[in-house]
């Protein structure tokens, strides 16, 4: 396999994992209107949960249960769902702004725990030597990477199929009804709070699943994999692609990831060595600009949700 193809496989794998997170955010924001300011936290919880469940036992660590990868995947979804449930139960009966603030806190706190709870997470050194699923079946790294891309895409398609079904179901209609008009939904005897909690928990579980897929891919995780900027990247992917559209989210993931890696490569080539540290700030400002400008100029993104009614306020 040539270098370019190998890079493409790597690029597509990461972009697909991000696309799965975006799907989780899409159910929360795109379909239900719930603002999650700590996406990276749920992703990290999934990644660490998987690492702790599947990792090899070590004297210095509490975790390392050596479980099969599928158990790790399920555990990751469950752990992230649980975190989502706690935040949602506390904040969702209140004004929606509180959910934004609380999820922002989750994002920061998870990073703190990852850094400081060395007995569980390996601290700043992270967890390493984690098993990659079906690794032994392949005789070369390239073959494994290619397999893993297919594996991630299959999981992504499964999540997509699940969400597409959910969104079309009566429950999915209810989600949009609540997003558009809470009072009307309540007057029809629906319970918006409970439906919001369900939607938030499902979204969190999907983000956790994506975290587990990342762990299985790289076999090594540390707090620097889960820096706060990831939350903004995921948001940019969703809104550029078009929130409320599953296809839009996936396209947005690839577009933004291309812009991010492309601008990174470009800047590292062009910027003089003493300004390298500064050049990464340019990338982040770019993400911020993309978010704000999209909200201002094209709130529906590239492929927005189709309008369900003929006229909107």
């Amino acid at each position, binding site marked *: 396999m040539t270098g370019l193809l190998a890079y493409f496989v790597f690029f597509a794998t990461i972009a697909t994992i991000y696309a799965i997170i975006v799907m989780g955010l899409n159910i929360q924001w795109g379909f239900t*209107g719930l*603002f999650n*300011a700590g996406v990276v936290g749920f992703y990290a919880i999934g990644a660490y949960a998987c690492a702790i469940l599947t990792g090899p036992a070590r004297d210095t660590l509490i975790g390392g249960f050596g479980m099969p990868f599928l158990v790790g995947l399920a555990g990751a979804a469950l752990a992230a769902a649980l975190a989502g449930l706690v*935040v949602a139960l*506390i*904040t969702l009966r*209140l*004004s*929606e*702004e*509180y959910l*934004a*603030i*609380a999820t*922002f*806190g*989750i994002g*920061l*706190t998870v990073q*703190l*725990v990852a*850094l*400081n709870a060395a007995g569980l997470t390996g601290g700043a050194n992270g967890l390493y030597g984690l098993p990659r699923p079906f690794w032994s079946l392949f005789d070369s790294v390239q073959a494994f990477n290619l397999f893993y891309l297919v594996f991630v895409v299959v999981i992504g398609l499964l999540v997509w199929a699940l969400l597409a079904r959910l969104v079309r179901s009566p429950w999915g209609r209810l989600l949009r009804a609540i997003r558009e008009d809470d009072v009307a939904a309540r007057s029809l005897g629906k319970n918006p709070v409970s439906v919001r909690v369900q939607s938030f928990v499902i979204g969190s579980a999907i983000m956790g699943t994506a975290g587990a897929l990342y762990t299985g891919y790289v076999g090594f995780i540390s707090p620097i994999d889960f820096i706060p*900027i990831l939350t*903004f990247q995921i*948001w940019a992917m969703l809104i550029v692609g078009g929130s409320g559209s599953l296809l839009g989210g996936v396209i947005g993931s690839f577009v933004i990831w291309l812009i991010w890696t492309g601008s990174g490569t470009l800047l590292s080539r062009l910027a003089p060595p003493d300004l390298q*540290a*500064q050049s990464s*700030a*340019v990338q*982040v*400002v770019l*993400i*911020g*600009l993309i*978010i*704000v400008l999209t*909200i*201002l100029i094209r*709130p529906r993104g590239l492929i927005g949700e189709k309008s369900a009614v003929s006229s909107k306020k």
Partner: protein
Amino acid sequence: MIQAIADGLSTGAIIALGAMGVTLVMGILRFTNFAHAEYLTWGAYMALAVLSVTGLDAGQTGPFRFGLGLVLATVIAVVLTVALALAIDYLVFRRLRGRVNHITLVFASFGVALIVRYSIHLIFGGAAHYYSNDLQIAWLIGDGLRVMPDQALVFALALLVSVVLFLFLKYSALGLAMRGVAENPALAAINGVHFRKILFWTWAIGGGLAAVSGVFYGMTVQIRPDMGFQLLLPIFAAAILGGIGNVVGALFGGFIVALIEAIALLWIPAGYKIAVPFVVLLLVLWLCPRGLFKGSSGGSK
């Protein structure tokens, strides 16, 4: 323990100055501005820029590391921070207000925060800066309690600001109009209150307080691009604890959050510092979501 309380009170004053601005904006303009903490950072850096451009010394007055130079720099920083807050409102929030779901404003502020924080990073670099390298001699009070004069000053200033702000909101015509908009914007408009005027003063007060808070924070800790970001959660916790829109509540909220943080750090590892305000926040939202003190407005809903 006493030392922790003393340190908590001075940090609390800085948080309170930020939280008073946040609570005003949340109460009157009705959205949670994630970019508010970046106004603190901006204010701190603007004061730094003024000092380095003019070549003024931060100065020293009596026991304080706060001389005429830094006072002047702070005044200019306040003006520049208010200008930033107004510019952001003009460029971003004004275009969205009333047109979109109000949580989209929160989202936009989230993006704005990123732009401001990393623009500062880009302009000034990521390294820590200081206003002055002078060492300050702590006041020794009683048996081994050490209080930095600057800490005492920021504490007194926060008290003063909250009292002035409270009196302003309660008795002045403009303050009454601001409370009116917070309570019921449509009714306020019918009674001849100009929303744009209220908008201007809300950002002016919020931005000004943020700049002062940022300078004080920069003086007691250090000036870094993520300094405001680190304070965002304590500021939100203080504002919610105090009841949204309640300025005096935000003052007490700031002290309570900082005191809990300082005392908790006696037992828990320092690495978990930021988690403390978060836990406080969750507990408040869970147990008494309207805050300990009655919000003076309809809240951010």
